[in-house]
């Protein structure tokens, strides 16, 4: 765990956690711990996600009917609650992704023009 302790990790921007969860679930059903691990690994351990923060977010997404949940058995034979992307969630992901892309592009342009 040394790498994790020495590197200064990035705090998540508000509202981006939902997007990351939806994105992670595009590869198939996953449980909370799996989502947390996926976010960490996919971001090259750059993002700091407090695992606990995931669950209220999952609950929120479930209430908005963007994801659905079912208890199931994990790979190593443990009970876990598995989340799946719904059709509405898929649409939301597309919307949010394009919004995010426009946002980062715009911010990027501003930052580059200042540097230049």
């Amino acid at each position, binding site marked *: *765990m040394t790498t994790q302790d020495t590197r200064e990790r990035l705090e998540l921007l508000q509202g981006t956690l939902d997007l990351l969860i939806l994105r992670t679930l595009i590869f198939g059903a996953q*449980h*909370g*711990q*799996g989502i*947390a*691990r996926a976010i960490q690994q996919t971001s090259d351990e750059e993002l700091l996600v*407090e*695992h*606990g*923060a995931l*669950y*209220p977010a999952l*609950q*929120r997404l479930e*209430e908005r009917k963007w994801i659905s949940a079912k208890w199931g058995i*994990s790979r*190593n034979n*443990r*009970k*876990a*609650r598995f989340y799946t992307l719904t059709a509405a969630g898929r649409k939301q992901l597309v919307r949010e992704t394009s919004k995010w892309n426009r946002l980062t592009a715009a911010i990027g342009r501003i930052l580059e023009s200042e540097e230049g």
Partner: protein
Amino acid sequence: MFQRTRKASDFGAEIEAHIALETERLQEQGLSDEDARTEARRRFGNVTRVQERFYEASRWPMWDHFQQDVRYAARMLRKSPGFTAIAVLTIALGIGATTAIFSVVDATLLRPLLYPHPEQLVSVVDDLPGVGARDVGMSVPEWHDFARSGIFEYVSPTGGGDVNVTGSSEPTRILFETVGPNYFALLGVPTELGRAFDPEDQTPGFTLEVVISDALWKGAFGGDPRILDRDIRLDNDLYRIVGVMPASFRDPGQTSAQRGTQLWAAAGFAGPPAPEPLRASHFLAPVIARIKPGLTISEAQSRLDALVGSLQKEYPRDYPLQSAWRVRLVPLKQAVVGDVRQSLILLLGAVGLVLLIGCVNVANLLLARASSRGREMAVRQALGAERKRLMWQLLTEGLLLSLLGGVVGLVILYCAKGFLLQIVPERLPRLNEVTINWPALLFALLATLLAGAIFGLAPAWHAARPDLTRMLKQEGRGSSASREQARTRRALVISEFALSLVLMIAAGLLLRSFADLLQVQLGYNPQNVMAVRTWLPIPNDPATDIYRTPALQAPFLREVLRRGRTLPGVEEIAVGNVEALPLGHERSDLNLYPLIINGRETPSSEAPLVDGAIVTPGYFHLLGMTLLRGRLFGESDNESAPPVVVINEAFARTYWPNENPVGQRIKLRTAGDRASLTWNTVVGVIADARTESLADASAPRMYMSLYQRTAKDWAIFVRGQLDTAAIPVQLRAQVQSVDPELPVFGARTLSDVFSASLAERRFSMEIVGLFALTALLLAALGIYGVISYIVSERTHEIGIRLALGAQRHRILQMILSQGLGLAIAGAAIGLVGAVIVAHLMAGVLYGVRPTDPVTFVSVALLLIAVALLACYIPARRAIRVDPLVALRYE
């Protein structure tokens, strides 16, 4: 978000699963069991916080807090049942009374009349302000002018009365109305069966078609489906039933009785039996009309004014300028309600005030409790409770109290509904529409919420700005805020006392009036007397009247007397007209006679008018009236003997103050023919009796013999040990065995008639008395609250005083004198108000002066005594204080 789909335990299980999975993964990476578990928990973060967030997100926190507050408030109320009961009862009384009065106001004033487009319906009233005459009636030519004016869609005269109905199962006396043929078209209500009158019918007299009510159809005709085109006899005249109105239809009359009209006959009012249709012959009243659609009442009024002006120019002889003829349009609803409007609004105001005193009082109680709960509030706030939460919680307590009170009030009202409607005088218009309906319930709910907000806000406001440190340090000692509060509470108590004194004096004066009335020497004896009414028909053509002269009437009369005397228990029997029914008749100008005294002849138009009743000889003895001079009627004073009269003392005193009235002659009109006058001899003088009104001293009055005059509106009197259930049936059988066409109705004992004549007085006395008692109770509670508060505030001081050797009775005196001060201040203000109110009431008082010192002094003393009693309870608590405990109190 509003419903929880997921349980917290399920959420907890998921968290557990997460930590287990993470621990396993970390173990796979080579960590020891212990380290893996710790690291997994560390990475998860604060489990409790996550669970809280789940909890809050999945609920509605406001609702949650509200539920908590309600539970807490319910617990607090349960913990002090005495306080709760008093507060709930206070509110229940206020809400119940206010809702009761509101439901009456709603039915009479607020609800529109139950006809299509009721805003177009008006009453058309002729006034002659120049000679000070209002509502003189309309003449037939005026009616036709107005109907043709283009201002109205329809104009219809109406005229109520009662009439004998024969041709159904049993001869009955019913309320009927003579109306214009366009009456139902005007009201806009279709018939249930058959048809209404033809609005264009031009028949001058009665059209001989009638429409009957659903009640008459179902009652007298047993709901016969072949009712249409059936014949019906009204006072022996033949009419044809053409229609039946729906059960929901009510005539727009002023009283419940009129609204129960059972039959409508159409007439043109221009042929017999109506008088000649002259322009100056004003006899149509009341007249109602429907304004043309699109016109407002004020537009119609201004066009009508123009029409009246041009008619005045056209017929100057019929409308002399000095009489200043005017025609007024009054919205029909207002005309129906009449002058009850103001008194109802006043009553609603008064009852609202009682509710307000109730609220003030509960606020007082809550404030007193709030100051004893000050420490609890401060502690909770110090522990982090938000101020807003505390305010809400106190407000919730107030609302819960008021809702409980409202519910109890409505339950009481609902149970007492029948009784309450019974004590309301029958003359109240639209009484039959009074119900506890949705508007009334809505009103009760609003009043309840308002009341709860009023008295819940006071302690909530107080809780919103406590000085925490001081509250925690010195509970019970007066801070400046609570001193200000105490001043307010004292002012409230003083005003409560003032108001209840006013109400109590009003009630006291009414009570004394009522008691005095019951002591009045009646001058006749109503015990063991029963009266039953019948009505000899008045056909449209006088020639067909089989009882049109005294000689034609006499055989029937003697037969009724003879048969009645044989009934079981009957010791005496007499017949008179309704005018002879003591306290049981309305004043009617039919029974007023212009009096022309021999030797002082005056034109009959200027002659004084005197009440006259027509009776058989046995009447005076049966009612126990005393003969003072001369003689009473005898059997020989019959149709062939010279006409005689018996007068009362007031008559003798007024017209022959220094002469012997016996033997004097007066000129009176003969019955049936108003124009012809005959001389009558006074044969006797009887003592005055209160037969017209219990409250007024007797007016001049005379009695004529039924053997010498005809009467249609009979009352048959019997005296004896009577079976009051059997006698009406037996009398009916006897009368109908002589003339089977006659209805026999209205059986009442004279004692009942006597108490019914007091009904309105009793009602106002009871209502005002009830309000006064409520106010007194509330004032007593109020002063109790204030004194209790003062005592608890000064427990420490009293302890010191006692420790220093103060006498207990001195302490008692000190506390009582504070309460006494409040009561006396309130009473002093109240006395001023009571003098004003009592003078306004002078008209309804009997036997007592408005400033009756006995009432004023005794009520004031009673009030002060109640105040002292209310103060004594907390004061006794004060002197029982153990100095040691009191000093350790802090």
